[in-house]
């Protein structure tokens, strides 16, 4: 009787893994397909006949690193993204603290105003931003990318962190005050550690947005000094060589891997952060 039940349980577990495995394969299929395209010779990709035993080639791999300044693109992407997240956190944490803790006239309006910057189509501000950066001499620099990514993400980073801060009981700060801590200490030693999951969540989402940002990057970057991975992808299209599918696929895959790894590493925080951020505030 018990062994029967145990067996049934074992079976249902196997079944569960089978279903989940199948689903994972289904979801990952496009990614794997990408990878396989990236690792095949170019001729094999554009042939009309189906190929059952694809051959393996590192043509695209060599091409992106040797013929194209891929290392520079990668460096630009990483620098611009990390820089923008740092700018965001430095600005968003105090802003969120203020919005969640102090009551002052117009506080809720400011909160809404910050969020409303996400509500318009980015193309509307493209031209003014172009002129702004040109006048500051920032065109075609990663500093400009940092600033623009930070600006795009600042509102929701503030919003997510604020919603976490609202969850911190006020008594906690009262206790810290009676224990003798000043505002900066309270923020640094009590509040920030308590909202760390929110900070991580917001940072990761900001990174994902930044890595996928295309419009403003295209506008600002014009040489490999500022090209990022996302814009580099478009470099493999057009030109005398036609569309270089295997290189595109490989670059896309390379852009995907770091984000994927980060998300896997922090997924516990992420799912909680997404729902909390969604429900609160």
């Amino acid at each position, binding site marked *: 009787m018990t062994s029967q039940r145990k067996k049934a349980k074992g079976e249902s577990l196997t079944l569960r893994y089978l279903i989940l495995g199948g689903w994972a394969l289904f979801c990952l299929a496009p990614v794997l397909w990408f990878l396989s395209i990236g690792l095949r010779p170019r001729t094999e990709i554009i042939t009309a006949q189906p190929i059952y035993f694809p051959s393996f080639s590192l043509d695209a791999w060599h091409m992106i690193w040797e013929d194209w300044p891929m290392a520079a693109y990668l460096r630009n992407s990483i620098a611009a993204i990390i820089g923008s997240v740092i700018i965001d956190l430095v600005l968003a944490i105090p802003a969120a603290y203020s919005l969640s803790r102090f009551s002052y006239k117009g506080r809720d309006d400011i909160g809404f105003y910050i969020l409303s910057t996400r509500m318009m189509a980015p193309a509307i501000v493209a031209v003014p931003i172009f002129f702004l950066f040109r006048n500051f001499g920032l065109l075609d620099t990663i500093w400009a990318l940092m600033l623009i990514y930070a600006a795009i993400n600042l509102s929701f980073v503030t919003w997510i962190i604020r919603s976490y801060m609202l969850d911190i009981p006020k008594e906690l700060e009262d206790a810290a005050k*009676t224990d003798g801590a000043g505002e900066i200490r309270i923020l640094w030693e009590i509040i920030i550690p308590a909202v760390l999951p929110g900070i991580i969540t917001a940072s990761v989402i900001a990174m994902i947005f930044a890595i996928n940002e295309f419009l403003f990057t295209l506008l600002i970057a014009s040489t490999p000094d500022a090209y990022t991975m996302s814009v580099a992808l478009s470099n493999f299209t057009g030109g005398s060589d036609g569309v270089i599918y295997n290189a595109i696929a490989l670059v896309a895959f390379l852009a995907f891997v770091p984000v994927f790894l980060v998300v896997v590493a922090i997924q516990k925080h992420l799912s909680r952060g997404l729902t909390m951020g969604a429900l609160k505030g």
Partner: protein
Amino acid sequence: MARIELTEIQKSWGAVQGVRDVNIDIADEEFIVFLGPSGCGKTTTMRMIAGLEDPSEGRIVMDGEVMNDIDARDRDVAMVFQGYALYPNMTIYENIRFPLRMRGVPRDQHDAKVRRAAEFVELTDYLDRKPGALSGGQRQRAALARAIVRQPQVFLMDEPLSNLDAKLRQAMRVQIKHIQRELKITTVYVTHDQIEAMTLADRIVIMENGAIQQIGTPDQIYNDPANTFVASFIGSPPMNLIEGKLENGAFRAPGIEVANLPTRHSGAVTLGIRPEDCTVAGGSPHLSGTVYGVEPTGDLTYLTVKAGEKLIEVKASREYRASMNKPETVTFDLSRLYLFDTTTGQRLS
């Protein structure tokens, strides 16, 4: 180490009045206990002393210095919060150490002080844990340890033992009293537990509805209640309050007659008598009714007698037993009778 004077304190949030007309003069080294039903303003008063809440009106003076505009962190108080307020990201050790760090206590003293405080609340085995991994009672003890780890001017303790079992509570109570006496620190303590209040307090402050009903030593509160609220709040079971008529020194209510009372008063009065001042039967009984309930507890028996529509509690001897609805008489100790004005509830002298 501080005298605290609260003068004409009011606290309101819009239309909600949390605390009204609070006047207390807390002496240096005194142990003051706030006692009162839920929502009567105990925590609010305490938070105003701590500087976490600004009084809407009135003055808070500590050692002669007006504190109204002094920040919480600059008032040298240590507080145990009703909701514990432990820092979730720190271990219990770091929680207890936090005030030492913030107040600039020399580093080489930290460890010894933290361990002493933890020992005191019997938490030494849990110092490495985070608050989330402790039970409610353990968290409460950690909060207590954080407050007593240093020597402030004032201790503020908001129901610091409410979540402990009876045995631990008794032990902690003795400990708190001991360190308060040893360190001579002015202490304000909130509790719902009468025994705690009676045993710990130099003076008890009874509050109701944001206002102070009476301030006095435990003896005064018990023996000289200022009004029916205090009389019915202290004592277990509480004082019997019997509404009736007083005429020519004789009090009458259904089933109850007490003669030879002072003739100064007359009209509608409320007679108060504690269950422990009632005797079953006796020479010339003041009450005759029927047995409504008998509850033996071991060392004595709680008897409820029904006189007219009124239920009267009596503490009877441990052997006392009676069947339901049996006629019974009760004698009051006339020297322990209280008279209150029925409309105002105030004590008549």
